[in-house]
C-alpha cells in the first residue's frame, strides 16, 4: 500500500526530514547548523494575529525562527500575501 510522504513544507515534514538524515552525519551537521542560525521575521499584512507555521504571530511583531523554518515558511503559497519580511 502506497503511503503519502511527509510534506517537506510543514513543521512535521521538517522533523521527518531531519530524522531521515540522521544516517548522514555531514548532512545532519549542516542541517543542525542551519537550524541553529536564527533570524527575526514579522508579517505586515493581514489580521492582527494569525496562526502560521505552527505558532501564533502578531502583525508587525518579530519572532525568531531558524533559517530552515524561514525557508519552509516562504515556500508556502500563502506566505507572500502576509508580507513576511526579515526585520
Amino acid at each position, binding site marked *: 500500500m502506497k503511503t503519502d510522504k511527509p*510534506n517537506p513544507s510543514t513543521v512535521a515534514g521538517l522533523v521527518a526530514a531531519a530524522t531521515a538524515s540522521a544516517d548522514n552525519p555531514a548532512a545532519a551537521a549542516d542541517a543542525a547548523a542551519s537550524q541553529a542560525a536564527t533570524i527575526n521575521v514579522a508579517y505586515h499584512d*493581514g489580521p492582527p494575529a494569525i*496562526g502560521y507555521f*505552527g505558532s501564533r504571530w502578531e502583525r508587525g511583531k518579530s519572532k525568531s525562527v531558524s533559517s530552515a523554518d524561514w525557508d519552509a515558511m516562504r515556500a508556502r*503559497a*500563502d*506566505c507572500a500575501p502576509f*508580507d513576511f519580511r526579515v526585520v
Partner: protein
Amino acid sequence: MNNQHKGAEMQLLGQFETSFRTPGAAAALRLPFISFGLARDLRRTDDPSIDNSPLSAKSGCGDAVVPPGAISSTADARSIGFYLKAILGQPLVKKAVMTQPANVTGVYIHYAGSAAGAGNGTLAYLIAGTTLSWTPAAGTVGTLINVSAGGRFTIPGGSANTEVVVDVDAASLPVANQNDATINVHATLKAHVFPVTLDDRPSCLLELGHMKTGQTEFYRYLGGIFSKLSHDVTARDQNITLTAFAAEERSADTTPAVTTVWDAAPTSYDRVRFCGSGGKLTNGVNTGFGVVTEASIEIDNQATGLETADGAEGYGHADNGEVMFGGKAKLVFRGQSAGNLWNLSRTSTSSRMQVRSSVPTSGGVFSLTYDYPSVEFMPDPIEKSGKTGLFVSCSWKAHRNVGGTLPMIVLVNDVPSY
C-alpha cells in the same frame, strides 16, 4: 481506556488546488465548521449471477464517489471568503471604502482601486452635465463621468488604479452641486470583489482530521467543488450552510493511503462572526422596501460532478450551470405602498436589491455586501390567521438586465487574499 474519537477533536483543513485533484504543496487554512457531511459512497454493485446457492453473490466494486453533502459553519467574516471563492471564483483585491456619501445622494461606493490613497477622498457631483468626480486622498481628481443614466460606473482618480466603483440611482441624485470630502479609504482593510461568471470554479482539498493524540485519522477529499452557499442574514446566530462534492476520498484504508495530516502547521485566523444585528436588505438607496424582518440568500452555481473515462474513481469533471442568486424576505404587512417589497412582488416589478452582513471589529467594520442590479420577487400567500400584526413574505431571484450589469459581491475584511 476509552479510545472514542470526540467531535471536539476534529479539524477541517481547506486548500485550493493547482489543478483538479492536485493540491500542490501544503499551505492549508483551518476552517471553522459545525457539521461536515461529505463522505465516500462506495456504490458497490450487485452480482446477479447464479451458482447453486440460496444466497446472492458478494457485491462487486462500482465507482465510488463523494456525492453532494452539506457543510455548515458559523458565518465567519474571514473564512467565508474561502467558500465564496470556491463558489464564485478568484476575487480581485481592492481597497475598502468605509464611508458612504451623505450629501451626494443616490450613490453607493462599492470599493476603491488598489492604488487609491488611504484616508479621506472627495466625491463631487456637478448638476451641470450630471457628472461625478473622484479625488482620492493625496491624489488628484480624475475625469468627470456623466452618470445621468444611472447604474454602475467607474469614477477614475487622477492616476491609475485609484478609481472608485459606484452604483448610481439617477432619481435620487442631488438637485444641486454637492460633494462629500470624507469618503474614507481604509489603510489596511481589503475589499475582495468576487466575479460572477461561468468560468470553471477552483477545486479544493478538504481534510477532516480526527486529532486525538496517538490515534489520529484523516479523511482527505480531493477535487472538492462547492455548489451552494446559503445564509440567513437576520438570524441571531449567524451561520452558513454549504453544499459540496468531491472527486475522491482518501483515508487509511485507500490506495494511496492517508495516514498523516496534510498540513501539520496550517494557517488560521481568529473567528469574527457576523452579527445578526448587522443584517440588512434594502433597495440600495433608501428604506422603500418597507420594514424587512427576515432576509436570506442562497448562491447556487449548479455544479454537478460527472464520472469520466479517466481510469480513476469518482468524479473526473465538474460541470457548472447558471449562477443563481435567490432567497426569501419577510416584511411587516402595510399594504402596497409604491416600491415596497409586497407591491413589487404583486406587480412583478424588478428592482435593485442590496443584502449586507456586517460586524464591527477593532480594526474597522467587516462586511459582505451583495448588490443585485435586477431582482424579481415572487409573493407568498398572506397568512391570514391570528389577531396580532400580519406579515407578508416573498422569494426573490436576481436576473439579467438589458444593460448586462452583473451583481457586485464585495467582502471587506483584513485577510490579504484568498
